[in-house]
C-alpha cells in the first residue's frame, strides 16, 4: 500500500475540561475519497480543522505527505497549503469580490501567471462546476447551491492534490446536493485528487466515497468500505445508518420528555 497522503495519528483535542477528539487515527490513501461521518457534535469539523492546519491539537500528529503540519516550518506549511483546496460549509466566498475574482484570487496571489492565462484558467474552473455564466456575479446574488459550487471552483483553482469538503450538501435540496456529488466524482476522475468529505448526509457519503469513517463522541468507531459499512453489525454504525435516535434522557421516551417540558409530567392534567 502506498504511503498515505493524509495521516492522522492519535489526535487528541481538548478545550478546557471538554475533550472533543480522543486519540483519533486515520490514514487516507492517494486518489481516495474518504467520507468522515458523524452526528452533530461528534468532532468531525474539529478534526477537519486540524487536518487543514487551522488549529493545533492537544496531542497527536497530522501528517500531510509525511510532513507534520504542526511542527513544520512556515515555508513547508505554505507549500502544503498550496497543494490543498478547502471548500468550507459556509462557502467562505469573499463578499466584496465577484465569483470570478474569488476563484482567481489564489492564482493571482500565489502564481506568476499572466492576467490572460489567469482569466482563462478561472473560466475553465467555473465551467467545470457549471458556473460559466455566473462569473461576474457577486456571491450574494447566487443561490446556496451555486455558492457551494463557486467554493469548489476556488478550492480547485491551483489544481490541488488534496481536496477537503466540509458538509458539502448541508442546506441544499436533494437535487442540488446530488449535482454537487457529481462534481466531486468528476474531480476525482479527472484529476485523481485525494478527497476528504466531512458530512452527515448518508446518501452523499455512499455516492462519492471509496471508504467511510464514523466518528462518535470524539472517537473513531470504524473505518471501512461502503460494503463493509453496510454489512457492519457495530451498534453505532447501525444506529447511524438506520437513523435510530438517541434516547433524550435515560429511560425517558420522547413523548414523556415533551410532556415534561410542557409542565405535564406524569401524563395529561
Amino acid at each position, binding site marked *: 500500500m502506498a504511503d498515505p497522503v493524509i495521516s492522522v495519528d492519535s489526535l487528541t483535542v481538548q478545550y478546557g475540561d471538554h475533550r472533543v477528539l480522543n486519540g483519533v487515527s486515520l490514514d487516507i490513501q492517494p486518489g481516495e475519497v474518504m467520507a468522515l461521518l458523524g452526528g452533530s457534535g461528534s468532532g468531525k469539523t474539529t478534526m477537519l480543522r486540524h487536518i487543514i492546519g487551522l488549529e493545533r491539537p492537544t496531542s497527536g500528529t497530522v501528517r500531510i505527505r509525511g510532513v507534520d503540519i504542526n511542527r513544520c516550518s512556515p515555508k513547508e506549511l505554505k507549500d502544503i*497549503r498550496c497543494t490543498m483546496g*478547502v471548500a*468550507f460549509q*459556509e462557502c*467562505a466566498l*469573499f463578499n466584496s469580490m465577484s465569483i470570478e475574482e474569488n476563484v482567481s*484570487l*489564489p492564482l493571482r*496571489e500565489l502564481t506568476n501567471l499572466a492576467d490572460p492565462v489567469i482569466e482563462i484558467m478561472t473560466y475553465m474552473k467555473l465551467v467545470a462546476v457549471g458556473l460559466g455564466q455566473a462569473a461576474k456575479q457577486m456571491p450574494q446574488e447566487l443561490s446556496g447551491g451555486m455558492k457551494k459550487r463557486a467554493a469548489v471552483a476556488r478550492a480547485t483553482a491551483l489544481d490541488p492534490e488534496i481536496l477537503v469538503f466540509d458538509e458539502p450538501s448541508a442546506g441544499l435540496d436533494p437535487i442540488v446536493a446530488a449535482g454537487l456529488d457529481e462534481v466531486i466524482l468528476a474531480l476525482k476522475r479527472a484529476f485523481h485528487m485525494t478527497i476528504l468529505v466531512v458530512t452527515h448526509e448518508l446518501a452523499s457519503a455512499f455516492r462519492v466515497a471509496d471508504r467511510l469513517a464514523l466518528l462518535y463522541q470524539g472517537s473513531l468507531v470504524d473505518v471501512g468500505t461502503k460494503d463493509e459499512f453496510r454489512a457492519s453489525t457495530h451498534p453505532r454504525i447501525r444506529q447511524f445508518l438506520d437513523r435510530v435516535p438517541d434516547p433524550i434522557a435515560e429511560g425517558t421516551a420522547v413523548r414523556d420528555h415533551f410532556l415534561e417540558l410542557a409542565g405535564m409530567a406524569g401524563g395529561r392534567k
Partner: protein
Amino acid sequence: MNVLEATGDAAIRGLGYIGELTIQFWSGLCVSPHVLPIIGKHGRWRAAVRQMAVIGVDALPMVGIMSVCAGFILAMQTGAELRRFGALQYVMDVVAVGFTRELGPLLTAFVVSGRSGSAFSAEIGTMVVTSEIDALRTMALDPIEFVLAPKYVATMIMIPCLTIMSNAFGILAGAGFMYISTKITLGMYLRYIFNSIELRDVVTGLLKSLVFAAIIVNVGCLEGFRTRGGPDAVGRSATSAVVWSTFLVILADVFFTAIFYLLHQV
C-alpha cells in the same frame, strides 16, 4: 474571587491585550510595503486606495463639521473669559495652538475611531464568523497582509491628512468668531495665526496623529480577529473596538503630551 485576584486577572488580561496589539502592529508594519505602489505586490495598492477613500474622503465632512463646531466653541468659551481682561486677541492663539497641538489630532482620532475603527472590526469579525479568514489561511494567504495591511497603510496616511484639515477648519471657525466679535478680517486673522503658530506645534500634532492612527487600525483589526461566535459577537467586537481605541488614544495623548512638554522644558 477577591479584589486582589480580580485586579491581577484584569492586569494580566490587559497586558495580554497590549502584547497582542504589539505583535499585530509589528506584523502589520512588516507586510505594509506589500500594498504600496511599485514596490508592492501586483495590484494590491488598489485595496489601500479604496480604504483611503473610505477612511479619509468619506470622513472629511464629519471631521470638518466637528472641527468647525469645536473651534467655534473654544473661541466663544475662551473669548468670554479673555474679554474681561481686554485680551480678546489671545483667542486666536488659544485656537491656533489648541487645534494644532491637541484638538485637531484628537477630534480626528475620535471620528475615525467611531467610523472606521468599528467598521474594521465589524468587517473582519464578519470574515471570521463566515470562515473567510480561515479560507485565506488555507489558501496560504496571510490575513495580516491581505486584510490588515491595506487598512494599515490607508489609516496611517489619511489620519494625518484629516488632522491637517481639522486644524484648518477649527482655525477658520475661530476666524468666524473673531469677525463677529471684533470685525477682524480673515486676512488679518490669518496673518496673526501664522505668526503665533510654531512649526513644532504642527509637527507634534501630526506625530500624535500617527500614533493615534496606529492605535485605531490595530485595535479595530485585533477586535475583528478576536471575534468568536455568531453575528452578535461581531456587534460586540465593533463596540469594543471603539471603546478600547478611544481609551488608548487618550492614554497615548497623555503620554506624548507629557513627553513633548518635558522636551519643551529642556
